[in-house]
């Protein structure tokens, strides 16, 4: 979606403010929001693309005015409410009011280390051949789906070069909407700064994105 999260190339957001000796978390509630989000992935049954979409799928006015973990929290609330795991009334009350919906399993303390170490690999077996090879000239398609996509607006319509064939990976555009993993070949595509930003671009800069095959056409 062309939402508040698609920030590449926007102006007006002001200076970057690195914080000296920044702590990992800035408040107790951030730790809890972080851990709750990770812990709910297993009982909730959503995938990473669904949770990314849940975070970005809100008014850009809200997205840009919220802090990072506020966005996580809002995404988590949307996900659990949509699936009927928790009701708005329960969050309001701060207590469970209804019988819990049964879930397959929850993340136990003993499984945390193992689960984190395993992560969520997205590479899949395939018997198709990649359409492009390193060195090929490609153009990012001009697509504007209202749902989740990993193709940022600022590269759409622009031509670049295939730098790397990464492998066949779960396609987030499908996975985020519950339409299945639909694995597709994934490439690293390199763009020239001037190609993306015109005469205002830095001639000595190049920008790479990882793009799934459905995002690309021969240039």
């Amino acid at each position: 979606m062309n939402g508040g999260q698609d920030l590449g190339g926007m102006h007006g957001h002001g200076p970057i403010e690195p914080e000296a000796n920044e702590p990992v978390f800035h408040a107790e509630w951030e730790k809890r929001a972080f851990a709750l989000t990770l812990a709910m992935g297993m009982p909730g049954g959503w995938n990473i693309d669904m949770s990314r979409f849940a975070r970005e799928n809100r008014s850009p006015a809200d997205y840009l005015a919220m802090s990072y973990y506020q966005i996580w929290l809002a995404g988590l609330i949307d996900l659990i409410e949509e699936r009927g795991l928790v009701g708005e009334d329960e969050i309001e009350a701060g207590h469970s009011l209804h019988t819990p919906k049964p879930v397959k399993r929850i993340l136990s303390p003993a499984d945390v280390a193992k689960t984190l170490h395993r992560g969520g690999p997205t590479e899949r077996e395939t018997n198709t051949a990649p359409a492009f090879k390193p060195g090929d000239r490609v153009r990012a398609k001009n697509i504007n789906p209202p749902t989740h996509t990993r193709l940022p607006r600022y590269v759409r319509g622009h031509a670049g070069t295939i730098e790397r064939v990464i492998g066949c990976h779960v396609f987030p555009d499908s996975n985020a909407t519950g339409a299945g993993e639909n694995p597709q070949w994934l490439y690293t595509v390199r763009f020239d700064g001037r190609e993306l930003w015109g005469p205002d671009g830095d001639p000595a800069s190049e920008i790479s994105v990882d793009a799934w095959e459905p995002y690309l056409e021969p240039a």
Partner: protein
Amino acid sequence: MSGHDHDHDHEHSELSETQLRVRALETVLTEKGYVDPATLDILIETYEKKVGPRNGARVVARAWADPAYRARLLKDATPAIGEIGYAGRQGEHIVALENTPKLHNMVVCTLCSCYPWPVLGLPPVWYKSAPYRSRAVSDPRGVLADFGVRLPADTNIRIWDSTAEIRYLVLPMRPAGTEGWSEEKLADLVTRDSMIGTGLPKSPKDLAK
């Protein structure tokens, strides 16, 4: 334009409101048995105390000290990093990017906050902020200037917009005057920002300070 009026005074009340919301959520989810409170504590401890840029620094230091390891890292970083014992969530496919005198690499995620957790831990606030995410792809030199880094005009800058499952780790250049240093000592020179590309490693002189 004008720099006035950019403060957001609603942040305070929002914080306490969010605090209450998180507490409510945790209570509800715990009462329903969806989460185990001990699990939450372990998750927090893992990312607050155990996983952090020190991991990445060890990877970089080994690559500086051991040419064979360097070659393995640049060829396929995921198993090379696994050798040292780092792997997993938000780092399932890692690619190492080699800085050279002619090429400087910098990593951003314009769409969200993709970051190599197993080697760098959780990203700092600025990495997730709109100013960094918006400008890193279109004005990398300006961004580097914000970090106090000035590169020669003829150094090429490569921006990696981490839009997918690949997580990038920048392998900075080994500082001069560190010949014969141990891996452990070298790791002390490797800053978090040097592995994102918004900084350079410390020099032996910096370390002495």
